């Protein structure tokens, strides 16, 4: 066989042939659609591992503003930014309207706090409200993140992050070798998601347990980052837990660990057909009171539209 009849060359030549021009009407159609399609706000991770510490608050604040603006614009009857109600001191926390104010230097006021407000393009919406039981908790309206003393890092940090409206959860087979262990098919139910987390390498997972939170059922599982884990040895220096949605893509890790020894209590609920993933995390060195407050915050969750 001559070189020109080499099957591999022929296959290569064949795949080189074809259309290579996208017609203008497609660009026009895209332009029309994006004018009416909102960009999805991104929640978390808390921090990127290599971000300059002094840049973090500014970037976090910018992200929160985006999320809050989106949420304000989408929430029916939401108060106008800057003019929202604040809890009256004379009203008990359980009766108070959720605060719409951002964290101050002193943290959130005790009482109800809207952790997130999610609205899908298809119109499904869910809002999660928790009760802040004590001073020192930081987070912003709708950001999906709460941190004790604004510190998620070992050895004493603690906090929670919530992913709402999750349809597809790609749980990496190995959080350290995550770039090559992303499954082809995502978990699309609570049971599948928890089973995938339970099977994740090196996590020393607890047995999944049934839970009910805010009237919705789900599963809870406890995961660990090994105490001796050297995150620098992991792909891109990240110990990655999962990717939410199919299109986060090459660069789309949704949740990764802050450091060795991190304990993740992952609660996954089925809220009207969409998953809500609540990850509350702490360390062996986290004060017991902080962990108790964190648990109380999670257990106070209510859901509504």
């Amino acid at each position: 066989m001559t070189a020109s009849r080499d099957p591999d060359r022929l296959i290569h030549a064949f795949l080189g042939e074809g259309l290579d021009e996208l017609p203008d009407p497609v660009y026009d159609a895209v332009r029309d659609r994006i004018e009416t399609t909102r960009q999805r706000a991104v929640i978390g991770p808390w921090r990127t591992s290599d971000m300059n510490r002094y840049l973090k608050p500014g970037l976090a604040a910018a992200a929160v503003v985006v999320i809050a603006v989106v949420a304000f614009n989408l929430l029916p009857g939401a108060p106008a930014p800057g003019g929202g109600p604040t809890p009256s001191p004379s009203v008990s926390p359980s009766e108070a309207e959720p605060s719409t104010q951002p964290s101050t230097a002193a943290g959130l006021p005790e009482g109800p706090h809207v952790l997130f407000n999610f609205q899908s393009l298809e119109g499904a919406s869910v809002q999660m409200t928790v009760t802040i039981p004590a001073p020192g908790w930081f987070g912003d309206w709708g950001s999906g993140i709460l941190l004790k003393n604004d510190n998620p890092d070992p050895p004493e940090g603690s906090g929670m992050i919530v992913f709402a409206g999750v349809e597809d959860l790609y749980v990496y087979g190995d959080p350290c070798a995550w770039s090559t262990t992303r499954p082809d098919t995502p978990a699309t139910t609570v049971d599948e998601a928890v089973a995938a987390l339970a099977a994740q390498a090196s996590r020393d997972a607890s047995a999944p347990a049934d839970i009910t939170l805010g009237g919705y059922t789900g599963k809870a599982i406890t995961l660990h980052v090994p105490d001796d884990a050297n995150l620098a040895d992991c792909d891109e220096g990240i110990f990655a837990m999962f990717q939410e949605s199919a299109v986060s893509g090459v660069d789309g890790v949704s949740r990764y660990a802050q450091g060795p020894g991190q304990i993740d209590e992952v609660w996954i609920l089925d809220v009207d057909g969409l998953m809500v993933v609540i990850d509350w995390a702490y360390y062996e060195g986290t004060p017991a009171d902080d962990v108790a407050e964190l648990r109380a915050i999670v257990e106070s969750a209510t859901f509504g539209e």
Partner: protein
Amino acid sequence: MQATLVDQARRGDAEAFDSLARMVGDRCMGIAFRILRDADLAEDAVQTAFISAWRELRSLRNPDLFEPWLHRILTHACYAEARHRTRWEAGIRLLSVEPVHGLDNTLTVDDRDQLERALRRLTVEQRAVLVFHHYLGLSISEVAERIGIPVGTAKSRLHHATRAMRASLEADARSSTNQERMA
């Protein structure tokens, strides 16, 4: 330039996203057409991919990775288009009648016919690996990363796809030889 546009688009600048789409649209069409073998489906897949990319753009942490990220979205859009077509036109397979560009003179009409038929018998996932490997010239590990699959899976898909394509050419060659002997 591209990274700057990505940054602007991430802040909701539709004009910037339009410019970005026009920079990468032809290549996306090339990929989608070669995977789907149908211009209308390819245009639909590219359109879907662009809209998904706009919607999810804030989840892209590194603007320099916009095009690989978009290609992964596009691949999934192609899978969805192919499955949609499969549901609605089960069992019907038509050879492409699209005008093609860049015809290679090493290929005969029979070669094209056999390769087209072989390609259409592959799964859309196998076709995607072939296209990223041959059309974009990516290595297996790059294909795996681009599509978002393990390297072993990419290898396996490429192996099976290439074997099927070779087999179709070899069968055609044997058939031609037999006809010549009988003549």
